[in-house]
C-alpha cells in the first residue's frame, strides 16, 4: 500500500483533530477580519474568533450557502487581496449567473497535493501515463487533475474532452495507463472503442479516476468490464477546491476525505442539526487551510454519510459514501450543473408570461440528453407561421446553450398537457437509470 503523505493519511484521530483545530482557529480569525459577510454572520450568531478553539467548536459557526456566493459575486468572499490570487475558476449558478472561486499560489499547491494524494491512493506513480479527459478551462476538472498528476511526476496527457476517435487513438498510441473523465464519458468512450475495432488488448489502461457527476456501482462495473480497468471515484466541487476533496483508495470502500484541508459534517437539511456517523444527510465542508476562498460550513446539497471506521488501506482519513442525491433540484447533465430555474429564466426572456415547461433528462447511448417541453402560449403563437415557431425554438436552444453550456432539444406542446401538481410544480422527469 502506497501513500503520498503517510503521516497525514494515517494520523491517529487525536493528532488529526489537533491539526484541524489549529488550522480552523487560524482560518476563522482570518475570515472574521477579512470577509465582511462572515464577520456579520458571526456577530449575529454571537460567535467570536476566540470561541473557536477546537474542531469540536465547528458547530458554533454559521453555514454558508450557494446564494451567499451569488450575493457577494464576484469577489465578496475572497479573504486575501486580489494581487495574491493566481487563478480563478467558475461554475454556473442557479439563475444563469455564474459563481467564481479563486486560489492563491499556496492554494494551487495544496489542491495539487490533494489530487496527487488521491492518485497515489489508486496506485498511480510517476511511471504512469495519465490521460486527462476532463474539460480544461473554467471547469475545475481538467486543470485540477492536471496539476496533481504532474506533481506526482506522471506523464500527463491533457486531451480534455471531445474528439473521441482521437482520444482512443491516443489511449492506444501513447500507452495511457490511467484515464480521468466523467463516468458517462468513459461509457461513451467504451462504445466508440467497440466501433473502432481496436481490441482492448492493444491498450495499457489499468485504472480510471471518475467524478464530477453522480454514478453508481452498476456503472462502475460497466466501466471496469468495458475498459478492463479498476474504476475509482474522485469527488470535489469548485466551491471547496475542485476534484480531490475526497477519493477512493484501492479498497473502493468509500471516499477518503482530505480532512486536514476540508472538514466534513453531515447535517439534517431541514433541522440543520449535525448527524452522527453512518446517518445520511447533507454534506457540509469547511476549508481550514485555503487562503483565497475559504468557505465555512458550506452546504454542498449533496446527500451522503460519513464514517470514521478504519479502512483496510491503513488510512485513517474519514470516509464519505458516494453522494446519493441532492437536497435541492440541481441536475447534473453531461457533467454540467443545471438548475431548472436557469431554464425558467431563459424561457421568461422570450415571452411576456412564464411558460409552463418540463425537463426530460435521459441517457441515450451513455450520453445525457435534455429535452425541454414548453407549453405554447398565446403570445408565442401570435404569428401562426411554422417559420416563426421554428425560429422561436432555435432561439431558446441557442440561449440555453449560451447560458448553460449544454445543448438541449426544445419541443413545443399544447397548453395544459404538462402535469400540474398541487403546490410546487414538478419540473423534471429524470429517466436516467442510475442503479
Amino acid at each position: 500500500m502506497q501513500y503520498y503523505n503517510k503521516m497525514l493519511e494515517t494520523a491517529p484521530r487525536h493528532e488529526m483533530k489537533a491539526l484541524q483545530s489549529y488550522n480552523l482557529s487560524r482560518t476563522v480569525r482570518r475570515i472574521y477580519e477579512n470577509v465582511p459577510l462572515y464577520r456579520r454572520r458571526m456577530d449575529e450568531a454571537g460567535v467570536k474568533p476566540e470561541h473557536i478553539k477546537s474542531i469540536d467548536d465547528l458547530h458554533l459557526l454559521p453555514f454558508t450557502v450557494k446564494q451567499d456566493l451569488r450575493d457577494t459575486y464576484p469577489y465578496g468572499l475572497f479573504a486575501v487581496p486580489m494581487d495574491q490570487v493566481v487563478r480563478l475558476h467558475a461554475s454556473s449558478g442557479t439563475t444563469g449567473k455564474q459563481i467564481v472561486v479563486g486560489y492563491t499560489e499556496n492554494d494551487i499547491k495544496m489542491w495539487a497535493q490533494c489530487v496527487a494524494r488521491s492518485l497515489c491512493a489508486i496506485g498511480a506513480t510517476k511511471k504512469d501515463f495519465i490521460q486527462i479527459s476532463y474539460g480544461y478551462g473554467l471547469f475545475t476538472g481538467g486543470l485540477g487533475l492536471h496539476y496533481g498528476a504532474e506533481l506526482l511526476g506522471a506523464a500527463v496527457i491533457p486531451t480534455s474532452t471531445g474528439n473521441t476517435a482521437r482520444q482512443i487513438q491516443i489511449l492506444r498510441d501513447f500507452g495511457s495507463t490511467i484515464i480521468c473523465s466523467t463516468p458517462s464519458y468513459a461509457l461513451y468512450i467504451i462504445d466508440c472503442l467497440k466501433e473502432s475495432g481496436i481490441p482492448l488488448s492493444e491498450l495499457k489502461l489499468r485504472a480510471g479516476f471518475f467524478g464530477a457527476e453522480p454514478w453508481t456501482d452498476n456503472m462502475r462495473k460497466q466501466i471496469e468490464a468495458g475498459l478492463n480497468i479498476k474504476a475509482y471515484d474522485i469527488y470535489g466541487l469548485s466551491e471547496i477546491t475542485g476534484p480531490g476533496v475526497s477519493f477512493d483508495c484501492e479498497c473502493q470502500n468509500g471516499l477518503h476525505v482530505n480532512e486536514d484541508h476540508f472538514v466534513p459534517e453531515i447535517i439534517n437539511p431541514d433541522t440543520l442539526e449535525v448527524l452522527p456517523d453512518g446517518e445520511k444527510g447533507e454534506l457540509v465542508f469547511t476549508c481550514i487551510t485555503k487562503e483565497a476562498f475559504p468557505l465555512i460550513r458550506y452546504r454542498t446539497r449533496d446527500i451522503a454519510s460519513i464514517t470514521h471506521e478504519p479502512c483496510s488501506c491503513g488510512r485513517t482519513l474519514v470516509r464519505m459514501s458516494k453522494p446519493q442525491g441532492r437536497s435541492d433540484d440541481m441536475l447534473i447533465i453531461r457533467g454540467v450543473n443545471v438548475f431548472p430555474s436557469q431554464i425558467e429564466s431563459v424561457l421568461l426572456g422570450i415571452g411576456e408570461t412564464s411558460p409552463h415547461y418540463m425537463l426530460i433528462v435521459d441517457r441515450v447511448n451513455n450520453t445525457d440528453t435534455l429535452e425541454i417541453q414548453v407549453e405554447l402560449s398565446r403570445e408565442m403563437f401570435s404569428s401562426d407561421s411554422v417559420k416563426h415557431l421554428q425560429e422561436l425554438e432555435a432561439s431558446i436552444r441557442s440561449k440555453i446553450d449560451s447560458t448553460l453550456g449544454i445543448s438541449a432539444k426544445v419541443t413545443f406542446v399544447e397548453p395544459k398537457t404538462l402535469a400540474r401538481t398541487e403546490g410546487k410544480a414538478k419540473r423534471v422527469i429524470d429517466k436516467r437509470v442510475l442503479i
Partner: protein
Amino acid sequence: MIIKQISVFVENRPGRLAEITAMIAGCGVNIRALSIADTSHFGIMRCIVDKPEVTEAVLRNAGLTVAITDVIGLRIPDCPGGLAEALKFLADKGFTVEYAYAFIEKTENDAYVVLRIDDAERAVKVLKANGYKGAEPSKQ
C-alpha cells in the same frame, strides 16, 4: 375579401386532429376549408369556418393555443391557369404569399383560394381595383 382564419397549434400525436375537429363539429360549426402545416414535432391546423368567433371560443376553452388571422379569400375561375394567373398578378404587384390553400364550392363554377399575405389590406385594394372578387364562404 378579407376573411378570418382560425389557426390551432396541434401536437403530433395519433387522434389529436380527430379530437379537435370533433370539438368544432360539436358546436355546429362547418369547416369550409382546411390546411395543415406539419413539422416533425407539431402541426398548425388552419381552417376557414362559418362561425370563426364561436370556434375560437370553443377551442380556447378547451385549452388549445388558437390564433385568428386575417387572410384573403380570392375567387378564381375553376379552370386550368386560374390560380396561376392570380398569383402572377400578385407577384407582379410585389406581394409575397406566405402560404395558400384552395377549395371548391359545390354549386359554383369558381374555385377559391385562401392566401396569407403580409399586407393584406393593401393587397385587397389592389385586387379589387383590378376586378378580382372575394370569396365569402361564411355566407354560402
